[in-house]
């Protein structure tokens, strides 16, 4: 077994990325993502890779696109504010099929729409994993490099300041997720002079001598691919939801806190459970529907004005059972969560919502 190391989430993600074969990283500092850029800049050269502190987020994401097209396992990142600037490149990567891992070391949970809907153009989606703690951040990071290459697509890790900065004892070990498709598409120069040079191009026109599928064929194929991903890659965790009267839906760090509260409530005889989407896209809708089948209340707790709430409304067994107990809560610095991320506060909100309908009194 690998040695137990005390690592913050940024350093742990760096080690996990290297274990997954990442050898290129480019980004521009912004808290709390800065820690990831710093640890990548320290560790990647030691692992034979390259880390570039770009002049902007736009430059960073496009460097990652270029490195990935040339065959490197590549990643970039920022917090939501910087990833806003990367949207065009993320859409391009999705449409021209370049595998890149994008780390959103966010300041809060207000980037749910940004991660799951995206702000670029075209029919594309981004697989998004939201770990609940640092050990899961390690596993998700490794899996995302596999998923990116498996589907030739940009994928997102949705982290936060708690994950980025909390130091936790973790073990980093290589993981095998199964075989990957051939990388016969990479632009490594090996086709030079053979008349069979390759293209990575959003419009996929090909060459006169070797026409590509063109935009219609390419974008239909991309849409079909994301339909297949939506079916194949949904992941969620249901905790004590069978026979639960109250099911609380939460993701990422917030779900960790909610689980703690549910354990407490259960010990007091209140039948509560947790449903946690692990993939934010594809949203595990059918599993949520099943988990909420017997619930009298479906509470949604997220640290934003109600974004995942849209997906819960789409899938919960009974839409009328849904109550929102989250909200916007920002630390005075603007850089992390405010006081709403606290097991004591969550507990009170669950009890208040339950009292409204007589589930808890």
């Amino acid at each position, binding site marked *: 077994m690998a040695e137990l190391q005390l690592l913050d989430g940024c350093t742990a993600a760096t080690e996990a990325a290297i274990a997954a074969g990442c050898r290129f990283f480019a980004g521009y500092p912004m808290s709390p993502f800065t820690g990831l850029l710093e640890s990548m800049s320290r560790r990647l050269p030691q692992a034979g890779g390259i880390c570039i502190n770009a002049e902007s987020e736009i430059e960073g994401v496009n460097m990652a696109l270029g490195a990935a097209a040339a065959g490197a396992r590549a990643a970039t990142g920022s917090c939501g504010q910087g990833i806003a600037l990367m949207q065009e490149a993320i859409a391009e990567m999705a449409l021209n099929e370049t595998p890149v891992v994008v780390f959103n070391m966010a300041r809060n949970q207000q980037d749910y729409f940004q991660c799951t809907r995206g702000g670029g153009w075209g029919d594309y989606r981004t697989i998004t994993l939201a770990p609940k703690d640092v050990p899961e951040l390690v596993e998700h990071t490794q899996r995302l490099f596999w998923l990116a290459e498996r589907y030739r697509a940009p994928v997102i890790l949705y982290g936060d300041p708690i994950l980025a900065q*909390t*130091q936790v*004892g973790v073990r980093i070990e290589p993981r095998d997720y199964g075989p990957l498709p051939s990388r016969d598409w990479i632009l490594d120069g090996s086709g030079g002079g053979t008349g069979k040079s390759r293209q990575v191009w959003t419009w996929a026109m090909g060459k006169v001598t070797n026409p590509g599928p063109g935009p219609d064929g390419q974008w239909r194929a991309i849409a079909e691919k994301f339909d297949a991903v939506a079916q194949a890659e949904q992941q969620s965790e249901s905790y004590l939801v069978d026979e639960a009267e109250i099911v609380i839906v939460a993701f990422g760090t917030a779900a*960790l806190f909610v689980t*703690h509260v549910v354990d407490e409530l259960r010990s007091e005889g209140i039948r509560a459970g947790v449903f946690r989407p692990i993939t934010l896209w594809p949203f595990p809708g059918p599993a949520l529907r099943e988990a909420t089948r017997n619930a009298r209340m479906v509470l949604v707790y997220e640290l934003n004005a109600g974004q995942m709430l849209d997906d819960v409304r789409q899938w919960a067994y009974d839409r009328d059972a849904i109550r929102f107990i989250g909200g916007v809560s920002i630390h005075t610095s603007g850089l992390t969560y405010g006081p709403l991320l*606290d*097991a*004591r506060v969550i507990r009170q909100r669950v009890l208040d919502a339950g009292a409204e309908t007589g589930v808890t009194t």
Partner: protein
Amino acid sequence: MEHQVIVSGIGGQGIQLLCKSLALAATRQGRYAMLAADYGGEMRGGPSQASVVIGDQPLRSLPILPSAGAAILMHHRFGAFAVERLRPDGLLVLNSSIVQPDAANYPGRVISVPVTALAQELGAIQAAGFVMLGAYTQITGIVSAEAIELAMRELLPPYRQQHAETNARAIGLGVRTARELAEVAS
């Protein structure tokens, strides 16, 4: 049972290094540790707080503790969060050079150690955090003083290595003081 401690003080008192040393010492002994820090942008004088959790299995405690079994108060300013979350059957160790024991208003077990005055006697007021850490490990037995010293040496960057000996003496002084306090109490 996971060992949980919230450490509270003001920037410049060495709160963060104290907690890092404790968490790293536990990790080096093969135990699971979590260090969650919360501090303002200011270098000195602003709120500085951190919590450390130690256990023998992967940890279940939250990074923002809803309650804790122990608290260390290096300064009374900003200390309310820690004292409020301390369980009634817990342990409060306070820096009695600065914090009045009754100011904490905690009904449970309180141990007062004048760590700032002790550090001043060593000629290194900045090492007060390590006097406290030495005392805390002696009181709780959560990790050994030797493990703390090794962790402290590992954590100091090269340009701060000149403080390692003073810090080591501070840890030793904390251990001895806590031992003497225990003897007086019994």
